[in-house]
């Protein structure tokens, strides 16, 4: 094994990389678009849901409910009330989607409130949309509780309160998503710079030019993977900083934090490029990496916990996460970006990623064909 041959190959890749900014741009645009669109699409609180109000009671208490619901509109703004005179008309509009829920004050509502006889409001909801009906239910629940307390003296003893203690300040979804976007940037570099150009170069015959020189298979594999890892590290760090600014992550100027982030990105980028290399080492058809891209992307990104905690996944998907380099990358980056600085929260991820890289590289060297 000769270092100068590895470095010659590394030099070739880096020169090509810096010559054309396309790869860098492409590898950044996809993750940033994803970060912004997913971050704002899923991260926002639900607002301005049109809800029908049907007052069959016409009593004083129903008017009070109406006023409180309206206050919800001017306050948190979850709902916007629309008055309907009959329940069937409201339900018809619910079915065609003009309103997303119907609140009904039954004819005996005021009477029952006055006599403390189990007064009830009715919420008719469109249960095909769990997110909206969930938001409506919880808003209404809160409101009904507020309603009860001053008006009705509860016969029950004071209930035990659940005290919630948050360890970290409230995290916006876009910040939660950022580690996944950084991992995605490194993956795109591995996919394009590793998978696609590797096979394009092979089919253009460029490899034949190297294979007639005394370079060893292992040197070729290491040179290509090293260059790929450095490219991935650069893309990862750019997204860390740019994405961090967009998402409003604080403490990015801390050099120690940046150093740890770079360490995680370097190891993760090596894992991804070597994974890509092993996948593509025996492929000759330039169509293959392009076709595999989407599948691999979905298979690695979504089960990794990048956009949703893996505790919410079925067992088989959690099993993918265990062998998914994205999972460890996202976990380590999330720790460094949102929680703390230090080796304690990331050493396990680093060990697993380094082990995976070593395995993929060994496999890649073993599978690489030195001859045509």
């Amino acid at each position: 094994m000769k270092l100068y041959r590895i470095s010659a190959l590394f030099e070739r890749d880096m020169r090509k990389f810096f010559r054309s900014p396309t790869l860098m741009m492409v590898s950044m645009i996809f993750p940033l678009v994803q970060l912004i669109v997913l971050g704002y699409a899923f991260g926002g609180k639900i607002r301005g849901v049109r809800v029908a109000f049907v007052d069959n009671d016409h009593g004083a208490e129903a008017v009070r409910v109406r006023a409180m619901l309206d206050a919800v509109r001017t306050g948190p703004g979850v709902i916007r009330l629309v008055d309907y005179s009959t329940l069937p008309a409201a339900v018809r509009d619910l079915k065609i989607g003009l309103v997303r829920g119907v609140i009904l004050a039954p004819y005996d509502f005021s009477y029952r409130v006055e006599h403390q006889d189990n007064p009830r409001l009715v919420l008719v909801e469109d249960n095909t949309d769990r997110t909206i009906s969930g938001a409506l239910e919880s808003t209404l629940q809160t409101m009904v509780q507020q309603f009860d307390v001053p008006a009705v003296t509860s016969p029950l003893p004071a209930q035990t309160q659940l005290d919630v203690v948050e360890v970290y300040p409230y995290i916006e979804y876009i910040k939660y998503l950022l580690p996944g976007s950084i991992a995605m940037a490194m993956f795109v570099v591995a996919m394009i710079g590793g998978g696609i150009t590797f096979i394009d170069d092979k089919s253009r015959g460029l490899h034949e030019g190297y294979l007639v020189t005394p370079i060893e298979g292992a040197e070729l594999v290491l040179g290509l993977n090293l260059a790929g890892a450095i490219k991935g590290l650069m893309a990862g760090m750019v997204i860390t900083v740019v994405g961090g600014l967009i998402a409003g992550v604080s403490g990015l100027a801390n050099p120690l934090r940046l150093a740890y982030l770079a360490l995680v990105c370097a190891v993760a980028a090596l894992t991804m490029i070597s994974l890509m290399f092993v996948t593509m080492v025996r492929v000759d058809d330039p169509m293959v990496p392009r076709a595999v891209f989407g599948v691999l992307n979905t298979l690695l990104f979504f089960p990794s916990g990048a956009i949703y905690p893996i505790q919410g996944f079925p067992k088989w998907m959690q099993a993918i996460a265990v062998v998914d380099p994205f999972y460890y990358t996202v976990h380590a980056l999330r720790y460094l970006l949102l929680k703390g600085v230090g080796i304690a929260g990331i050493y396990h991820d680093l060990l697993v990623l380094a082990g995976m890289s070593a395995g993929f590289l060994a496999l890649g060297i073993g599978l690489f064909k030195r001859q045509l």
Partner: protein
Amino acid sequence: MSAVEVDHLTKQFGDFTAVDAISFTVAQNEIFGLLGPNGAGKTTLIRMLTTLTPPTSGTAHVAGCDIVREPNRVRESMGVIPQALTSDPELTAEENLSIHAKLYGVPAAEREALVPELMAAVGLEKFRWALVRTFSGGMRRRLEIARGLMHSPKILFLDEPTSGLDPVSRSNVWEMIERLRREKNLTILLTTHYMDEADKLCDRIAIVDHGRLKALDTPSRLKASIPGNDVVEAEFDRAPADWTAELARLEGVRSVQPRDGSIRLSSAEGPRTIAALVELVRARGVTLRRVSVASTTLDDVFLHFTGRDLRDELGEGRYSVGHLYR
């Protein structure tokens, strides 16, 4: 010691034998040509010699080293210009050369001296810093020849160095190859399917067809070895049934070969044969539509040894385009 020794080298792809027990030696400082049509097995043979593909059987030595047992010593001793263009279009000419030299461990001082020297030798000194993407096919080919020389090899393998080049670029490349051979004391093994190229450039020629070696000698001896010094080609109307037999009895004629509508006569003395032919035609009332006489070319040699015409072979379109770049 011979520069290249090939002994019963064979390559099979499944049942198909692409190179069939070929043996020859190439002397030091010789320009040796492998001449054959598309699919003859030239590239496969070169790929075995340049350690790109393992032989099925047989042995070969390049610069005294066994191609199977000492592949790295073979790689160090030779420069290779494969049939496909293998320079990197996204790098400059300079980068292509120096990165290639680094793979051989050529020291920096030597690299810096060699790059301008070789760029000048192939007539590209003005394009040292240009991206190879902007080069024409001929420029790229010349750059790749320079690249193959960056580690000062003693043996150069060129697979179809002039295919796809215009006539001017082709003769430029020929001159360049000649000069490099002289100045750098190189041994050169090249493949071609151009008769004129083999004739002008090569000291010796091996005719290869269907993976077999059909003939091997200097161009002039190959031409002398086939019957006749001249070729008379003629077309007739109203030829009688025994016409070819009658032609064979004409003065000087050594052999007769009908060939799509016309007839080729190998003759020891072309002009006399023509005179006799004209008399015979008049006597038998046959119309002579066209007649020509030419001295024997490698085309005729190829036809003689393979029973096929190289030009026809090339035009046949039996081999896919992709194959050309394999």
